[in-house]
């Protein structure tokens, strides 16, 4: 009781602090210097319509490589932590059967979800979205398949292969930029093309497709690892 009261006071103090901070904030009338640089230079430098994508993939490409590495490490550690448990692998008793609606629905929806994910990361340089968003959509397709059939087993080897090939090619494209263009992960190793066309912005669509596949594979592998512990823990309960 005392703990909850202290928590409430503390939380309200933090909330009050941020409320005062936000209440006195006035929105900007124009972009600040850094943002203005990106808004003005993106089209002529890189040929990408989506400024956010241009910053993520090219201007701050090295950060994105680190970000993908964080996700890769997290997926690996999730697999490692969950593999420590006893792996009986026997199907749990008393499981509620999956409904007809979910089974049939997932059969029709899963391919469409995969297609939407691919669409989102292929058009990452033109529309809102990109590799991370598309990868998350693909992983949500995996989640739907797991919900429809909780005992379904995905090939770990396929997921690992997609993930590592995408990662290696991503780094190789970065190194190509070092040789053929201005620096590591420079997108101008391919022609930048016309602003707004699908095949434009140099290597950005290529890199975002690779990131999309890599993120989709990594998040899927986390979901599969978590789903595979399901059979054992249910049995104990």
């Amino acid at each position, binding site marked *: 009781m005392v703990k909850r009261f202290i928590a409430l006071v503390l939380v309200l103090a*933090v909330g009050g602090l941020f409320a005062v901070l936000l209440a006195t904030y006035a929105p900007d009338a*124009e972009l600040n210097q850094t943002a203005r640089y990106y808004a003005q230079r993106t089209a002529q430098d890189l040929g990408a319509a989506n400024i956010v994508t241009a910053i*993520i993939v090219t201007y701050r490409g090295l*950060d994105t490589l680190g*970000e993908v590495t964080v996700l890769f490490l997290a997926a690996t550690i*999730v697999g490692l932590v969950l593999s420590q*448990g006893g792996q009986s692998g026997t199907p749990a008793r008393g499981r509620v059967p999956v409904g007809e609606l979910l089974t049939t629905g997932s059969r029709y929806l899963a391919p469409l979800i995969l297609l939407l994910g691919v669409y989102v990361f292929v058009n990452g340089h033109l529309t809102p979205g990109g590799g991370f968003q598309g990868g998350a959509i693909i992983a949500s397709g995996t989640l739907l398949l797991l919900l429809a059939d909780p005992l379904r087993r995905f090939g770990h080897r396929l997921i690992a292969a997609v993930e590592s090939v995408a990662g290696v090619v991503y780094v190789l494209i970065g190194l190509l930029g070092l040789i053929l263009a201005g620096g590591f992960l420079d997108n101008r190793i391919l022609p930048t093309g016309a602003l707004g066309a699908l095949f434009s912005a140099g290597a950005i669509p290529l890199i975002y497709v690779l990131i999309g596949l890599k993120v989709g594979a990594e998040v899927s592998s986390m979901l599969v690892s*978590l789903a595979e512990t399901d059979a054992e*823990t249910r049995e*104990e309960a």
Partner: protein
Amino acid sequence: MIEHFSYIVTVFLMIAGLYIVIARGNLIKKLVGLSIFQTSVYLLYLAPGKLLGGTAPILAPAYGVYSNPLPHVLILTAIVVGVATLALGLALAVRIREVYGTIEEDEILALDHRIEEAEEQGEERRA
């Protein structure tokens, strides 16, 4: 009031998330609270990035004023790292459930305490 709507939502989510993290003993509920708190931080960065009359930061001939793209870039990174930490937290919760048989914080602490006492008694008997 209405122009501060997103800020009110931000502060509300921040309070709710932080309170759940501190006050709840269930590890899964703590992780849910952490996610809500993270969401409020995303809003805290994204909402002030909107420029008066600005559109989404995607170049098009019909528009000249764009919102600030930098918060979007930063928060995309934050979301990805948030997903990674959430998955890791859930994996640890699963392992704790396997070993202790519970995910309630006070029960886990009580179990730890009992194990320590048993070990101390064992050492005394040996000595």
